[in-house]
């Protein structure tokens, strides 16, 4: 019981500390802390409109994070996820622009195209890693650059819109392509995200595939000697993550921007890596953590608008909270180690 209390205390302490630091920070820039928290809350989750906006940004982030759960399980740092999002968006855009059809046909088509784009780009990183012995971090970074370059090229080149605002993106898609909304909520995008998180949760938890993937990630050599085709599993991880990233890109293009823009990925791939690390690779945690991130991002806009705070303040707050979460994680890990060491010592003495 006592131990349990202490554990809870240890989990809550960093939150309290982070909140305290956030208050100090706000006081330092002459912002009333309570009002600030209230503004962020009302500007992100507290009102129906803002909740809808925030959830739509949550979708690509949580999709990316769900994909990264898979690659991390396989022991891979899929830095190329940004590029996978971008290529997914590009393929979805191509379908949106070039393929005629009604909503019931064209929307699934864009989703499929986005997944295919992400899979191709994911597999490229995978092939470089598995057959070319190129570390997936470097290969992924390179592929990110290529993907972004391709998006920019398409926007100011072949898909350039007429007249003014040529760099802002392609022309808006026709209305049939836009993901449907009800009461401001992009229900289809939300459904996709929820299904994806649940699917990844069960994939990693209950299936032979997930188990083998974990074995490959935790100990490639042992897994290989156990007869698991490790190369194929790594490629599969890249492909699955790419598919989810491609979906994220599709949502960005067809539900959020309604066009292809140069920074279509929104940086959600890299942010997703942070989300997964903070969640300590547990699928169930990525949903609330991603929501927290996006609520803070969307909500902190109000600090600039209403209080005239510098636009960096939201990012600084986010950084402080992340730092404390990591510190707390570190402290717990250290405590854990310490315990084991004590246990070891007892064992030797006895």
């Amino acid at each position: 019981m006592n131990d349990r209390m202490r554990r809870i205390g240890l989990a809550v302490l960093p939150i309290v500390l982070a909140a305290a630091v956030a208050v100090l920070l706000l006081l330092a820039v002459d912002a009333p802390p309570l009002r600030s928290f209230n503004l962020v809350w009302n500007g992100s989750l507290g009102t129906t409109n803002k909740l809808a906006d925030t959830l739509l940004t949550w979708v690509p982030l949580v999709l990316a994070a769900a994909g990264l759960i898979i690659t991390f399980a396989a022991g891979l740092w899929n830095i190329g996820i940004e590029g996978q999002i971008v290529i997914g968006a590009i393929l979805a855009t191509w379908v949106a622009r070039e393929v005629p059809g009604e909503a019931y046909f064209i929307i699934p088509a864009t989703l499929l195209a986005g997944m295919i784009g992400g899979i191709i780009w994911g597999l490229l990183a995978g092939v470089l890693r598995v057959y070319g012995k190129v570390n997936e971090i470097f290969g992924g970074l390179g592929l990110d650059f290529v993907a972004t370059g391709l998006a920019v090229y398409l926007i100011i080149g072949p898909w350039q819109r007429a007249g003014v605002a040529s760099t802002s993106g392609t022309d808006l898609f026709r209305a049939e392509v836009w993901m449907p909304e009800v009461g401001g909520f992009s229900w289809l995008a939300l459904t996709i995200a929820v299904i994806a998180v649940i699917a990844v949760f069960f994939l990693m938890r209950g299936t032979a595939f997930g188990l083998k993937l974990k074995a490959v990630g935790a100990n490639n050599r042992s897994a290989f000697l156990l007869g698991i085709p490790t190369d194929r599993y790594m490629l599969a991880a890249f492909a699955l993550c790419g598919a989810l990233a491609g979906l994220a890109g599709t949502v960005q293009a067809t539900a959020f921007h309604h066009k292809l823009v140069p920074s279509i990925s929104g940086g959600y791939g890299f942010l997703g890596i942070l989300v997964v690390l903070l969640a300590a690779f547990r699928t169930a945690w990525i949903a609330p953590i991603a929501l927290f991130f996006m609520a803070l991002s969307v909500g902190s806009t109000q600090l600039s608008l209403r209080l005239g705070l510098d636009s960096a303040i939201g990012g600084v707050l986010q950084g402080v909270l992340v730092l404390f979460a990591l510190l707390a994680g570190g402290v717990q890990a250290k405590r854990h180690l310490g315990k084991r060491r004590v246990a070891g010592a007892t064992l030797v003495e006895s």
Partner: protein
Amino acid sequence: MALELVDIHKHFGRVRANDGVTLRVEAGELHGLLGENGAGKSTLMKVLSGFHEAGSGEISLDGELLALRSPRDAIEAGIGMLHQDPLVFLPFTVLDNFMLGSGTNDRGIAAEGLDELSDRFGFSFDHDTPVRRLTVGERQQLEIARLLWLGARVLILDEPTTGISASQREQLFATLKTLAAEGMIVVFVSHKLEEIEDLCDRVTVMRLGKVVGETRLPVPAEQLVEMMFGKIIAPTGRAGSSTGSTTLRLDDVVLGSGLLNTDATSLGVSEGEIIGLAGLEGSGQRLLLEACTGLLEPESGSIALGDKDMTGLAYRSYHEAGVHYLPAGRLEEGLVSGLTITEHFVLAAGASDFFVDWDAAADRAAALIEEFSIKGTPDSTAESLSGGNQQRLLLAMMPPHIRLLLMEHPTRGLDIESADWVWTQLLERRDHGTAVVFASADLDELLLYSDRILVFFAGRVIKELDARQTDGDQLGHLIGGRSVA
């Protein structure tokens, strides 16, 4: 002057890498530290050079007690360590590397220091050459000069002859002899008998984390071998060598791993036969095992299982043909840290279904845990098990029908009970026709369980012995590289 270590304990989890080590090294003597890989030599030297903090025990130099919490403490106390791979910064120049850690920025003084030391030992360096262009031997020389310049009074060399040429080795030995003669404390760590015999005035032998003996040199080689491997107490010869049909056939197989190349080896292993591979660690046993399981493709020659030519096929083909390989590193090359016993059994069963019936899997795991007397629960993770239980788990994970079982150090690190249990299992398999090839550093084990023993030395099979007609002395001689008349 003398360096003294008293009752040093260093444990990693349950592994007692150093278990009450006491050692005294006098100045002016070249002191060797001999032992098989895993005997605890490197751990001891890392404690001494501040990389690891000892769990308990005292270290003193010249009667003064030292508190070594970091390599910096050690170097300040005058203890310098030369690693297997010298810690140099490859893109930097010779002089830059020489100055590292010295706290001086005066290149002139450093250059003088380097030149003086180079003259003394017959090194020759161009100050501005990037260290990348130096051979490993030259990097060692530079590192020795650097440590001396930093004021080292104790020089520790951890397996320094790996990767340097014969002439560089001669030069290194000459340097060490000079240093010792000048009153320096020099500790030379090696698992190579010959080198210790060549170089050292005195040797301490370690086995299983303990000091098992110390002697002035020279002494007969077999005495050192006995210290390294333990006294042979077991009788030789045992029942049941089978002469069934051939399971494995190697013809003129030449292997190479970059570091070590083997001579052409031919070998036939019959159903139900047990072959022991003896030799100092790294003499070619592992290459042979890896070749027999498809992990290492031979440079020439052929490998066959039964009637089927397997040359050039991949691990999976061997695996599917009933070859099972259990390397020495149980947590590195067998089990998966973080996964539970249940999950290991699911993996080992090669589950082909997408969904796993976890309840059934847990039941099966519980049954196997009982059958194989594993101390753990279905939810225990692999790394939480002791070495013996890890080995039990690995054996429990083996498929029921195996044609050829290849093992490295089947009982290393196990208590007697677990070791006996392991061999009971293996012999039972053997009785059902499984051919077993195992490498071991335990002469008892080799003599007790093998039908035939192949003795490796420097990549060559120097002798094939009938285990019933040999004894520990002969085997010890052969392992040390001395042919027996």
